[in-house]
Structures are given as structure tokens and as C-alpha cells.
């Protein structure tokens, strides 16, 4: 088992993949170091959210993903 990072919306194009598996545990610094410069720059913006294990984090930098968790990178939404 590992941590699965899921790229949503335009971040999927930037990452060049829908998801990526990395070794657990994964924190904020680890995430930024893993996803590449372009995605990391987006993550640093306030309008991009992160969910861990199905919960949107109030504070992204408090990310503590453990074995088996899914970390979703959520850019600004648009529906309807």
C-alpha cells in the first residue's frame, strides 16, 4: 500500500497523469516535492484545495497522509 495522489481538472493535464502512487507517509512538503514544479506552484495558491481520505483540508499544509490514503488535488471548480 501507498498514498495515491489524484489530479483533478486542469491539474491532470499539467501532471500528465490522472494519478500517481507514492510511498507513505506523505506530508505537505513531500507532496510539493513529488508533483513537479508546475503543479506545486498551483498547490501553493489559495484557490486550490486538497482532500485527504475523502475530507477537504481546512489547512493544506497540515496534510498527513498515511498508508492507503487518497490525496486529491482540487483546482477551482466549475459545474452546471
Amino acid at each position, binding site marked *: 500500500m501507498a498514498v495515491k495522489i489524484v489530479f483533478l*481538472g486542469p491539474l491532470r493535464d499539467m501532471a500528465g497523469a490522472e494519478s500517481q502512487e507514492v510511498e507513505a507517509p506523505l506530508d505537505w512538503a513531500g507532496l510539493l516535492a513529488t508533483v513537479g514544479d508546475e503543479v506545486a506552484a498551483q498547490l501553493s495558491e489559495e484557490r486550490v484545495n486538497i482532500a485527504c481520505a*475523502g475530507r477537504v483540508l481546512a489547512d493544506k499544509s497540515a496534510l498527513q497522509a498515511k498508508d492507503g490514503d487518497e490525496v*486529491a488535488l482540487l483546482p*477551482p*471548480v466549475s*459545474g*452546471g
Partner: protein
Amino acid sequence: MKDVRLLTEMFIPGALVGPFTQAHPGLGGVCTFVGEVRGGEGQDTGVEALELSHYEPLTLRSMEELADKAIERFDLMGLLIVHRVGEMRVGEPIVLVSAAALHRRGAIDAVDFCMDHLKSAAWFWKREKREEGWRWIEPHAGDYADLARWSKKNRQFDLDQGSS
């Protein structure tokens, strides 16, 4: 009755609104909004297709929460929210919101409220296909302004103005 659905295939709005209305005998009014992929004859937007993606662990749950809020806030008898995901062609329905209430104001406002939240505060990502390829779409400033109308502060303002 709360009915919230995320669909991967095309749907016929009338086929859903009919039974929804029937399920609420005694209602005073039903308000329905259907959003479709814009374009085609007389409206040449250059858009060939639209694709909506979602994130399974969050999207449906957040739509359910939105429905709960609307039902409570507008004192609804029933609320139907249907949203498509996947690829859609011009003219296909994307979203349907139908609200049943004892009085028209609650039904109309509930649909407006739900649509503003679905446009810019629900877990969907939208891109459109044109001749030159796919392009991601972000909400316009106007969409965020529409959403802000429902925040507590502004709501108080509405009440102070005695809107009815």
C-alpha cells in the same frame, strides 16, 4: 422528498420532473431549471462538446449537503437535483434542479440558490472542445458574485430590505 443524482448518460428532464411533481400532492408550486450545452444553429459558439468530470468521494456527497441546506432554508416539500458527468454534445442537458413548495417564492429561490452553488461551489470541472482542442473553463466573476448573494451577511441585507 430529496432526490440527488449524478448521471453518466443523457437524461430527459421531463421524464424526471413529471414523477417528481406527482410525488408531492398538495404542493403550491414547482420550479424547474434545465441547463443545456449551448450552441448549434443561430448560436454558433464554436463549442463542439463539453466534458464534466467529478471526484467520486466528494461530489455526490456535497450535492446531498447542498440539497439538505436548500430544503431547510426554503422550506421545501421536495427537491430534485440531477447533474451529468462525462462528455456531452450541443443541446444535451447538463443539469436539472426542480423544487416543490407550498408557495412559489421558496421554490423559485431554492432553484436559484442550488444553481449558483452548482456553478461555482460544487466538485465539478468543466472543459469544452473547440476546433483547436479542449480548454478548461473556470467560473466567471459574475458566477462568484451570484454565489455571494446567498451568504449570511447578504441574506441579512435582503431581509432588512424587506424583500418578499
